[in-house]
């Protein structure tokens, strides 16, 4: 819409077009809203949760394992019941979401940086560097994530830091493979030739020119990896190999309720599980739609 024809129709900015295409699916918009709510709840945990689940002074052991809807002596209503320590489940879940999100998003972000850098470097440099990096990726991806994570935790021990490290090691391969695939196509484009003719330093070529054009598929992988990381962290914590008891994530909350399940006290495991499920499904819905919108092969 330039030159001869006057701007009768204003050209849509890429961001606007992206928003329009994304909102074509009501399910994905719903997912995005749920994601926003969850992030907000996790951020505002100290202000919105009915009690501070880590403040032992606020807990009353006499209130342990109360069913949903019970009221405490202090007049506080436990909408989702209490756990064995007399902790309000709703507060526990909100604080648990916080840890699950920090671990999931944090490790996915580091894996993003490490994986994309290695993938781009492999594609740009080629030769032995590429073979070495891609063989490592093959090796890592040929074993299931849970196994690699178990192995790392078996060597390093438990703890938030080690869980995140395990999730990063499990996650970087996917980014590296995607980044390399995208970069192999992009580096033959004319703009890359032009940039190379300017004799720009290598890091600048890779990060300022190549990377931005390889971002769309990486963003899609990133969203799905966050969901995967959250699930995997929950699984590891459920097995007792993840986060410590002082920083309970959703997985650990579910594990705590496991022993009471058989006596019919379902809520201690059930509601954290629902929170986990809603989080993962919402992220996956957003990721699915992002894939459709950002995939150039589906473009008309």
């Amino acid at each position, binding site marked *: 819409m330039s030159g001869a024809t006057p701007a009768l129709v204003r050209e849509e900015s890429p961001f606007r077009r992206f928003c329009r295409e994304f909102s074509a699916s009501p399910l994905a918009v719903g997912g995005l809203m749920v994601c926003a709510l969850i992030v907000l709840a996790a951020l505002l945990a100290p202000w919105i949760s009915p009690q501070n689940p880590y403040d032992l002074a606020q807990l009353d052991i006499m209130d342990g394992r109360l069913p949903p809807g019970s009221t405490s002596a202090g007049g506080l209503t436990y909408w989702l019941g209490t756990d064995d320590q007399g902790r309000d489940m709703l507060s526990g879940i909100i604080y648990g979401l916080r840890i699950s999100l920090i671990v999931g998003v944090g490790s996915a972000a580091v894996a993003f940086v490490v994986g994309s850098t290695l993938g781009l470097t492999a594609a740009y440099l080629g030769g032995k560097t590429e073979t070495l990096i891609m063989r490592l990726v093959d090796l890592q991806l040929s074993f299931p994530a849970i196994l690699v994570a178990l192995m790392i*935790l078996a*060597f390093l021990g438990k703890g938030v830091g080690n869980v995140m490290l395990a999730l990063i090691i499990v996650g970087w391969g996917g980014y590296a493979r995607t980044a390399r695939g995208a970069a192999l196509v992009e580096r033959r484009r004319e703009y890359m030739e032009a940039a190379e003719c300017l004799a720009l330093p290598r890091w600048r070529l890779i990060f300022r020119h190549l990377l931005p054009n390889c971002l769309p598929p990486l963003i899609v992988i990133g969203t799905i990896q966050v969901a995967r990381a959250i699930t995997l962290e929950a699984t590891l914590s459920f097995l007792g190999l993840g986060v410590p008891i002082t920083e309970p994530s959703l997985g650990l909350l579910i594990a705590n309720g496991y022993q009471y*399940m058989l006596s019919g006290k379902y809520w201690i*495991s059930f509601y954290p599980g629902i929170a986990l499920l809603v989080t993962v499904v919402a992220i*996956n819905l957003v990721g699915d739609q992002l894939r459709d919108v950002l995939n150039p092969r589906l473009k008309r």
Partner: protein
Amino acid sequence: MTTWIFRRLIQAIFVVLAMTVIVFVGVHVIGDPLEMLISPQADAVERARAIALLGLDKPLWQQYVYFLWGAVHFDLGRSFVFNEPALQLIAQRLPATMELAVTAVLMSVLIGIPLGLYAGLRPDSFSGRSIMAGSILGFSLPTFWVGLMLIMVFAVQLGWLPSTGRGQTRELFGIEWSFLTRDGLAHLVMPAFNLALGNIALVLRLTRAGVRENLSMDYVKFARAKGLSPARVVFVHVLKNILIPIVTVVGLEFGSVIAFAVVTESIFAWPGMGKLIVDSINVLDRPVIVAYLMVIVFLFVFINLAVDLLYTVLDPRVRLESRE
């Protein structure tokens, strides 16, 4: 063909070697091997003897050779907890895990393919759409939570199925199996289904996509024009063609089923090697951990190799290509 198999074998050996290096480095460099390989209760004399015995005073490469030497002689140390050879412990629990994994894979095929066929033949029907929507849940649901919910519904509330353990077993070929008794089968159903859930969704989607793609192909039109019954077209002609990718994926997934059995076994207290490894990590029984990892790596490489070979048997095109 022979050279191809030979080349694949060499590749497989290299992967196993690479993994032994990683496990070795994990135990001996990242962690403290003394702490990992000697029982914490050992006194100074015992420690000194163990250091000499394990060769921890030797240079690293020599230690690695010792480690490999032990591995090829099926000696990966003794468990601190059980005071039995670690490999023997794993071997005792291997059949239970295999039973669970094979049942889960069978379930995913026997449930996934019919549902996928239905959804592929009637993509716009209500049930077809419901099956697809359900398969998204199959992917998103965290396995361990589904396991808990299964226990809650079928064991606690309805009381139909037992919640934990293997139940009654019967011996066959010198090994105890659950699937040979009624009680054992009842114990097997829930964990196997739990483990199969993700793969049911996967097989279902693959089948549906395959059916949709193949139905519009010329060979289907030709078969129909020949006057074959619709059932024969679908079950003989189409099914044969879509089986190739399904067999590959199911074969490759068999490895991750064994890995995910760690979770399922912990929930349902299934006495397999997955439960053993979680318990061992929790009490830092390192020889068992190392033995488990080596067994799993071996299994994985073997499965990948078997799938590759199976692929050439099923798809003549691969065979022809490799001959060139």
